[in-house]
């Protein structure tokens, strides 16, 4: 994404506004974004790498990181596959209530995550609408890793769908028609023609979903029960350790999560050309 720098031809000589506006921009960003990020790294490493390392390798910390990765992974797999399916159905077929479905699917972006977690508890919890029926069968979803996956699915649902649907919408129908006249079945057309055009959207949708799921806090803390080494994800671990006054332990994980999101967004940013290449 090469930014086109337009030369300011209407200004003659030295342009004071340029250094001034850059300075103001950075001055505003500094306390709001840059310094908080920097302080994670400064505090996390000011007692030496050894202490950072031991904080990181605590069994509870490793468990929390693993749990975050695994639950986010399955939520991503589900949301990409189902998002792909939903986008296909919703852009291909028109039916009564289609717009209502599209709005509903996109809704979780606007719902506070704590509300999402609460809603899941009301449905699946021991006294919830469905949970009440499952509880006697010995099926308990809430306060397990399943609950975390459910919360992640709920919160990140619109992300992959939102990236994939526009690609379906703009895809020319004549590609599929051409494929059909050439003898391809629906499945062959989807596999050979439709899917390759979605490659970029699927990869970026998956990365966005995964990044968002790994950082999820509000809904997870309600549905997981926050049990150390059982249902405690990385963000919950940071919160718990901070509450216990173990700032270093919290900080070590915070660094890992910050680096992790930094990597994912770098991929999204720099690989965009590759992802969108024809």
């Amino acid at each position, binding site marked *: 994404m090469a930014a086109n720098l337009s030369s300011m031809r209407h200004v003659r000589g030295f342009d004071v506004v340029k250094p001034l506006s850059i300075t103001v921009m950075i001055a505003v960003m500094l306390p709001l974004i840059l310094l908080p990020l920097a302080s994670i790294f400064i505090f996390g490493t000011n007692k030496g790498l050894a202490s950072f390392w031991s904080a990181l390798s605590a069994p509870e910390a490793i468990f929390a990181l693993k749990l975050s990765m695994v639950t986010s992974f399955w939520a991503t797999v589900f949301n990409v596959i189902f998002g792909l399916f939903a986008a296909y159905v919703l852009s291909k077929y028109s039916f009564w209530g289609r717009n209502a479905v599209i709005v509903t699917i996109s809704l979780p972006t606007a719902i506070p995550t704590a509300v999402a977690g609460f809603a899941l508890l009301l449905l699946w919890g021991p006294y919830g609408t469905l949970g009440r029926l499952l509880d006697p069968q010995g099926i308990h979803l809430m306060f397990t890793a399943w609950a975390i996956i459910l919360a992640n699915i709920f919160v990140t649902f619109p992300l992959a769908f939102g990236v994939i649907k526009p690609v379906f919408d703009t895809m020319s129908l*004549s590609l599929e028609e051409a494929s*059909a*006249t050439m003898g391809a079945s629906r499945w062959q057309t989807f596999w050979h023609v439709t899917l*390759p055009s979605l490659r970029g959207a699927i990869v970026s949708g998956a990365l966005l979903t995964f990044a968002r799921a790994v950082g999820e806090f509000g809904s997870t803390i309600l549905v997981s029960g926050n049990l150390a080494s059982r249902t405690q994800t990385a963000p919950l671990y940071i919160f718990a350790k901070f509450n216990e006054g173990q700032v270093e332990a919290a900080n070590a994980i915070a660094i890992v999560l910050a680096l992790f999101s930094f990597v994912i967004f770098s991929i999204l940013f720099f690989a965009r050309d590759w992802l969108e290449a*024809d």
Partner: protein
Amino acid sequence: MDIHITPLDFGKAAVTVLGLSKSFGESRVLQNINFHVDEDEIVVLLGASGSGKTTILRIISGLDLPDTGKIILHNRDVTNLPARERGTGVIFQSYALFPKMNVEQNIAYGLRIRRTKRKEIKETVNRLLELVHLNDHRKKYPSQLSGGQQQRVAIARALAYNPEVLLFDEPFGALDAQIRATLRREIRSLLKEIKVPSIFITHDQEEALELGDRVAVLNSGRLEQIGTPFEVYNNPETEYVATFLGAANILNGKIEGGKFVSSNVSIDIDTDANARDGDLAKLVFRPEDLFLRKPENLTQKYQKLADGIIQEVSFIGAFERVIVKMDLPDAPTFVVTRPKTETVAFPLIAGQKVAAGVVRFRILRDPASVANAATKKGRNAAA
């Protein structure tokens, strides 16, 4: 003597379209369309937008279903088969090349779907690349090709699986005027070389006349006339065909004693067995078939229409176009095109008085009186 009766026998026609009708809601898009395409033949469906030509193409390829009628491809009734089982080759208006496949992969697609052996695919792709002169571009992606190159890929891609018929949907619509002219000559000679029956659709009459072995003129879902370019241009059967294929001058009148008569105009016509006195008729003639002379100079060679006043003379390149206001009731204006030799021999200016005569013309009888005659004939035959 053995008698073989085949339930379907449409001779050597590659494509037969029988009684095709279709409506979208209230509007009738196609009304009883019948025509056929022979082996090695190029038929052009010519019509304005909304004439139903695209719908015919989509029905033949199986992308749309007709309300009634049949599609026969090489003696096989495919009316109820889905697009993928018909084996037609469609060249879409935007070519619809697969953007994530390179030229080779696009061409190989139809064979890959048919699970053809790898070696055979490679041979076919090489042969087709040679045929459409794209050997140097085999690894390129569609977005890296020019419009003409994309079109050749689209043709090669359709030819790969030996299609029953090639169907071209406004194939030159997306190209600029100069390239269009070159490309359609190229494509015509290519199709003549490989001998694959083809149907083109277009709204461009010049394109239709140049490309087609036969031209079918469509008007609001009806097939007005089908014939060789010469026939449809010189012997239009309806007013629509006459005016759609180039400019045409029209004079209303009636048949009387073997003549076409309109006020004080009287033109000798060939004796038509069905023409009866009193039938309403139209005299139709092309701008190049109307001749302007000094009133005293109009020779016996021409049948005189009337005198007129030159209204406008404009230079349009190879020809001169003259608009002349006739000295007839309602003062109709006729268009005349004159070649250079004539403009030099007899220069014209606006306001000049001339006499107008015709050599070639066509008499179109009023459809109502034609239908009348037909039923009478039918009754006589029945009796």
